[in-house]
């Protein structure tokens, strides 16, 4: 019982927790975190690899810029130590003029570097993001329906919007600051060591403190930001779902409860985000404190050294300037650290998606089928969604090329499952399904989809015009072909009656059209696709009688030379089939031409009788 309960935890309370992607928010064992880190680092590496030259160039520019910026304190020092005495003692202005020239050069250099850097880094950053977006999108497209059902569309959206936004923010702000600060630390250290090794060593005493603080922050905030990525995903899932169902929300006055739930998710997200930022505030205060401490140490020790005559005041001044230059960027960097941690968490999430195993993989060495006859064969097919509830125990069925069969049976008999297996939404757990003798798993995705098309129950329309929606059946189809397809399925009439005809925008999810009209558009789309095998899963349920009649008539022509599987509870649609297969709990209980089954007096005959009664 407990195992049973455990397995079904998915359907109680929260959605499924199983995939690695989601649990990472609460990860606490070091091994798993290391794995997560290395996974996201690999992703980052693969993002940067194509741009390594540009990135090297960018770093080069930053080095130059760094030297340009770094020159200022040296020039100041030189000016004070040598320029001023030269003027006051000898009236010699040449040094100060030289310094002025040097300053102009560095300013110009800085200008060029910054300008080129921003432009170039924007190109690289946007190109990296663009590639990542496409990679993630394509990965989601390839992942199985089973994955999507688990993951939910809201999460898919969250990964591609909010997580991408986190990464965008990182590429846009402050990567240069990070590199500059790092170089800054190195160069300043070197310069200080050269000028006065002893004073430099003392100045750097506080640096280990800094590292400890950074380490602490990166550890705790990684947890906080992972959590925040997850809370925002949950928020998005809820937002997308409740906005998608807004009609039902309003009709059933669910607004209050929705607000309450959304409010809670909003609050969870706020707290999760705030946590990371508050840790950041502590770090920010810490960095400033350490900076001031360093100033005090340098002033005391350097001052003492100057009193001893071991160092010059100019050197001390330069050191104090360097201290400021050393810590000011770090102060700013702390802010960027936030962005960086958030982006890292987002990268972890996305690397999880990209590493997700594809449950319905493409074959390594695909078999080709040229112009298949369309013979479908189920060989000892077993299938279950959940192990303890077998939908198809052992199915054997042969559908010769060109035959139209109707699947009939009660809800849960396995009709839709069969349709999904033929469309390879899922792969069978045992046995195989063959098209012209070739296992579906051996076909490329493109070959399979060219030959097998399913019209689903949901009649999904995409944002765009009616013509565009029909065209999906055959991208690049001419207007004539589109109109022809609409005419065949009987959609032309209503489309023409719309003010903008085929150019009418269907609105979100086809909201501009009625359910029946949407179904007709989807029909036209499938007709245009012209596959060898057509599967209609409850594809006519929303049609009224005249439309259904038209579709019926069209189907006779459409299906004449193709293999078809029709699932329908309206027997009017079943009537056009050559053969009826009655399913019961995943087993074929009756099989034969419709007329023969009616005569045989089985379940189908009973269904048929009821249906005829219903027509009066």
């Amino acid at each position, binding site marked *: 019982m407990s195992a049973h309960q455990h397995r079904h935890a998915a359907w109680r309370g929260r959605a499924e927790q199983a995939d690695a992607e989601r649990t990472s928010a609460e990860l606490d064992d070091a091994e798993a975190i290391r794995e997560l880190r290395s996974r996201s680092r690999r992703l980052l590496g693969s993002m940067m690899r194509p741009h390594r030259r540009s990135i090297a160039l960018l770093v080069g520019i930053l080095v130059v810029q760094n030297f340009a910026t770094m020159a200022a304190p040296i020039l100041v020092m030189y000016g*004070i130590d040598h320029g001023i005495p030269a003027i006051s003692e000898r009236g010699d202005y040449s040094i100060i003029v030289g310094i002025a020239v040097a300053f102009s050069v560095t300013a110009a250099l800085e200008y060029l570097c910054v300008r080129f850097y921003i432009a170039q880094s924007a190109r690289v950053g946007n190109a990296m993001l663009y590639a990542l977006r496409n990679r993630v999108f394509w990965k989601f497209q390839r992942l199985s329906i089973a994955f999507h059902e688990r993951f939910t*569309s809201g999460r898919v959206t969250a990964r591609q919007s909010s997580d991408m936004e986190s990464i965008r923010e990182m590429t846009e702000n402050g990567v240069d600051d990070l590199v500059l600060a790092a170089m800054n630390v190195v160069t300043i250290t070197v310069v200080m060591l050269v000028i006065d090794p002893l004073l430099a060593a003392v100045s750097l005493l506080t640096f280990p403190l800094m590292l400890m603080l950074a380490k602490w922050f990166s550890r705790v905030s990684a947890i906080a930001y992972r959590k925040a990525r997850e809370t925002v995903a949950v928020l998005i899932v809820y937002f997308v779902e409740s906005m998608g169902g807004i009609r039902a929300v309003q009709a059933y006055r669910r607004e209050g409860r929705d607000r309450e739930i959304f409010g809670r998710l909003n609050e969870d997200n706020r707290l999760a985000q705030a946590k990371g930022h508050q840790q950041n505030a502590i770090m920010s205060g810490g960095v400033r404190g350490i900076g001031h401490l360093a100033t005090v140490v340098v002033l005391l020790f350097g001052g003492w050294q100057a009193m001893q005559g071991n160092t010059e005041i100019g050197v001390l001044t330069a050191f104090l300037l360097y201290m400021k230059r050393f810590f000011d960027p770090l102060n700013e960097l702390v802010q960027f650290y936030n962005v960086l941690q958030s982006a890292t968490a987002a990268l972890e999430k996305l690397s999880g998606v990209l590493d997700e195993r594809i449950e319905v993989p493409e074959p390594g060495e695909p078999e080709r089928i040229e112009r298949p006859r369309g013979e479908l064969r189920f060989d000892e097919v077993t299938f279950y969604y959940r192990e303890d509830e077998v939908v198809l125990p052992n199915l054997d069925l042969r559908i010769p090329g060109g035959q139209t069969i109707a699947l009939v049976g009660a809800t849960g008999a396995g009709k839709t499952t069969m349709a999904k297996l033929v469309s390879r939404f899922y792969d069978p757990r045992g046995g195989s399904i063959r098209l012209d003798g070739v296992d579906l798993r051996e076909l490329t995705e*493109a070959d399979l989809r060219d030959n097998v098309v399913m019209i689903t129950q949901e009649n999904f329309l995409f944002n765009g015009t009616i013509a565009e929606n029909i065209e999906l059946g055959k991208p690049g189809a001419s207007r004539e072909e589109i109109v022809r397809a609409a005419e065949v399925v009987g959609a032309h009439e209503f489309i023409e009656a719309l003010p903008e005809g085929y150019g009418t925008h269907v609105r979100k999810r086809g909201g501009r059209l009625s359910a029946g009209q949407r179904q007709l558009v989807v029909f036209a789309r499938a007709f245009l696709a012209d596959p060898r095998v057509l599967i209609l899963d409850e594809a006519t349920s929303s049609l009224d009688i005249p439309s259904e009649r038209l579709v019926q008539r069209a189907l006779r022509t459409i299906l004449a030379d193709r293999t078809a599987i029709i699932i329908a509870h309206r027997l009017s649609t079943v009537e056009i089939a050559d053969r009826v297969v009655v399913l019961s709990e995943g087993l074929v209980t009756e099989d034969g031409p419709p007329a023969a089954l009616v005569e045989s007096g089985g379940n189908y005959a009973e269904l048929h009788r009821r249906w005829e009664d219903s027509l009066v």
Partner: protein
Amino acid sequence: MSETDDPRLRKSPLANLWRLKQYLYPYRFRLGALWTMVLLNIAAALSIPPVVGAAIDGPIADRDLDRLWAFAGLIAALGAADALLALTRRYFQTSTAMSIEADIRAALYEHLQRLHTGFHDRWQTGQLLARVTVDLGMIRRFFAGGLIFAISAVGMSTVILAQLFWIEWRLALLVAATAVPLFLIGRGFFKEFLPAARSEQDQSGEVSSAAEESALGIRAIKALGRGPLMAGRFDREADELRHRGVRKSLIASRSWSAFGAIASAGLGATLVVGAILVANGQLSLGQLTAFILLQLGLLWPIEAAGWVMAHGNEAMTAADRVYEVFDTEPDIRDRPGARTVDRSTVRGELAFEGVRYAYDDGTEVLRGVDLTVKPGETVAIAGKTGSGKTTLVSLPSRLNDPTGGRITLDGTDVRDLRLDGLRSVVTTAFEEATLFSMSVRENLALGRPDADERDVEEAVRIAQADFVHDLPYGLDTRIGEQGLSLSGGQRQRLALARAVVVKPAVLVLDDPLSALDVHTEELVEHALGQVLRDTTALVVVHRPSTVALADRVALLHGGRIEAVGGHSELLESSRAYGDVLAAEAEEVAA
């Protein structure tokens, strides 16, 4: 595609950002304290360099170690105060900004809930989502980062300048002069960057929309094998976003680069002129050091000015986009003086009087519908695909409002009734059953949260939805997108049960049995018949079998009710009715 109202009526982005102040108001004391801390923080940070300068000029020059210790102590104290202030203010600054963000998000969500379905049909969810997440994030970052930075930058620059003037006014004048080119460049930047940022943010919404749509339509895409096509489309959107992103940054690259260079040049000028002044004895070395130290403090605010302005611009466009939604008034809301209704006092007489409805593209689908449904009566609405049946039945519960004529409930225009009450008295079940990610029980009790076990069970029985008991957790099983998936027929039965649970005075069913097989349909009809006996009902039908539920049938044709009567009566009298609902057997046999 973002939807914009008449641009002349729209406020400027800056005005829209300013309008957000109402969300700042509840936090005014915290914000006041914060900004005070920011100023104190600046004061603490700025007080340090003069002390350092004094230490160099004083104890170090005089070789007085004891006094040096005193100075060091002072600097340490000031430094500690600075660090502590920074910590405290950042801590509260982010918390406050996040509270503000969460508040706006909640308000936006609430507003979206109130907006009519027409609005939601037009707007892609991805665009709304981008506003609720990305745009609000930008606003938050501005309040937590950019704005504070701007305040402190202005405050700091003012104080620094004042100190500079105090040390040496001629040098300070030189420094102040650099503000002129900075201002000019900044102004140009504003003009160009704002539209570029807006266009990038809009495109980012398009990309989200494409991602969201492809996720929702994954089955349709896979069924047709259009993954590569969709990826191609997504690629175009993403590519456009990349271009707009680059364009925006190029604008930034032109201005920001100048900021840093001008600041550096200013420093150089100070050094040269300062050196001359020192050489001429008009300025001490310590003074010059202090001056330069202070001026270095100006470098960061100036270099970051571009960044701050970019944040400000992005926050403005974000506010603009957010207010685009806030400024859309819900078409359907309570009129002033609307009356409350409640179930116990409603008889349930529903009348359509000259009802017209036109889509916003001008097509008029209803052209004067007159129909009265007596209390307790069930009227079926028949009509061809696209004749406006679904539109018609969306009117009584005010999911849409008619564009002409009126609908009355017990003689009162439904628009004069409070929405909340109206929708509990008139309940609608749609053909496309929307189930939410929650337990079956909660889904069923959606319209009546106080429904008890008996009500739920009864509704389950009527809708023939007994399969729920076989789900892994029975009524507690989570269904919907984040839960167990159900078949079309199962979903439809639950949607029907959900409407039945409410026990409304007027029940509106939009083809509620289309996905059921004949056998189940028969059982549902039988059970539903009992419910409908004393409920006013409007039922959209596609099949003769469903017509059996109704006392009368009304034929919707050409935007009007063309005929009303019994099924067989209409079959004889109306040709149009025959076309729509005549038995299909002959056709199939033919």
